[in-house]
């Protein structure tokens, strides 16, 4: 039986291309955890922004291999070596994706807006000096500027534009990126969010966050938004996650803080005992 995800020994490499690491594995684990939902979702168009080695888009294509209705895969990267390596990785696994060398999704936004059913993205999230952002080669795979947010904050509105009504976005975020603030920001645009996988390594704590449009979320008026935003952000900042709390404290947090409701509402405890914890 063919492997359901990309095999490391078949993943191509190049000195200027980020190799699959914990963050890539966590993202693919999140896709695997959501596999039955993804198959039910029946995505027609799938896109990876920043495909690097090709490990993730190859895995997505293998996971969705027999999706009813068929799916078309696209992947972008700014780094020409990454495009080449992804092409080799895809071929070694016998799957296909259309590759485009571009910055995020430049050139696709005009026509592809509102059409993409699944976007996966492992962005350059490492906090670095601002002048490291936008360099060539492998630096483009990790340099994220202040709080690691420079590129993430460019990607989010583009993903919002590209996603179809039923579209899902899976994104790798680091604690230092302040995921709770990102989720609040996306909530203002009508997105619910859920942490599908949380994983701590020696250096970092990774969150794989899934975003989807939720019609239950009332889009706030501009006036309310600016009024609420300051309050919510200060709460969000005080809720630095990840951190571990007793269940009873989580319940009281749920009652106390509007911000936590954003995650609580969409928890799916059946997937994981504790998809993430507030801190």
């Amino acid at each position, binding site marked *: 039986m063919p492997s359901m995800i990309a095999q490391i020994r078949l993943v191509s490499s190049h000195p200027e291309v980020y190799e699959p690491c914990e963050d890539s594995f966590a993202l693919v684990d999140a896709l695997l955890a959501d596999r039955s939902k993804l198959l039910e979702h029946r995505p027609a168009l799938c896109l990876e922004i920043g495909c690097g080695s090709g490990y993730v888009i190859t895995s997505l294509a293998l996971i969705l291999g027999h999706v009813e*209705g068929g799916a078309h895969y696209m992947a972008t990267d700014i780094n020409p070596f990454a495009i080449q390596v992804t092409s080799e990785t895809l071929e070694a696994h016998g799957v296909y994706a259309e590759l*485009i*060398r571009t910055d995020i999704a430049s*050139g696709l936004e*005009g026509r*592809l807006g509102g059409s993409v059913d699944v976007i996966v993205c492992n962005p350059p999230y490492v906090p670095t000096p601002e002048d490291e952002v936008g360099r060539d080669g492998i630096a483009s795979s990790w340099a994220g500027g202040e709080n690691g947010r420079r590129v993430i904050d460019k990607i989010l509105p583009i993903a919002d534009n590209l996603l179809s009504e039923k579209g899902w976005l899976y994104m790798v975020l680091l604690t230092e990126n302040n995921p709770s603030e990102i989720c609040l920001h996306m909530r203002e645009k009508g997105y619910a969010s859920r942490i599908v996988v949380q994983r701590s390594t020696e250096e970092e704590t990774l969150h794989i966050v899934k975003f989807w449009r939720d019609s239950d979320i009332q889009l706030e008026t501009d006036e309310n938004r600016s009024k609420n935003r300051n309050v919510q952000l200060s709460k969000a900042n005080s809720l630095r996650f990840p951190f571990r709390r007793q269940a009873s404290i989580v319940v009281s947090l749920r009652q106390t803080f509007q911000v936590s409701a954003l995650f609580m509402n969409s928890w799916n405890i059946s997937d994981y005992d504790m998809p993430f914890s507030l801190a």
Partner: protein
Amino acid sequence: MKLLTHNMLSSNIKGVTNGFPLGIEAEKVIERSVDMNPDFLKNMFSKIEWKPLVEASRIMGYSDLPEDVPDSSVLDSEEFLRKFHHALLEIHLEEGALVCPQTGRKFPVNKGIPNMLLHEDEV
């Protein structure tokens, strides 16, 4: 690069208001057969700009698509689906360029991969 992708790409140069469809300069065209999936084709039909697909196919050497935008009832025709499938997914631009319809700027396509990166003064 498949023509499905060509149908989804537009010129992203700053100031360009009408960047679709991109022209095609075809130096090398290849065909790769893939399994046909009628559900996928029916899904894509509503997203495709028909005339640009017909024109792109013709440039790539395939002229069997109906000229005018077909009514969605054609999706019941196996013959139509086969042609649509072939044009959309089996014809690849391997070497050549995509051309901005407004400025004439060329985006190179090498080994089947379009390079949509802009120069600093185009962003």
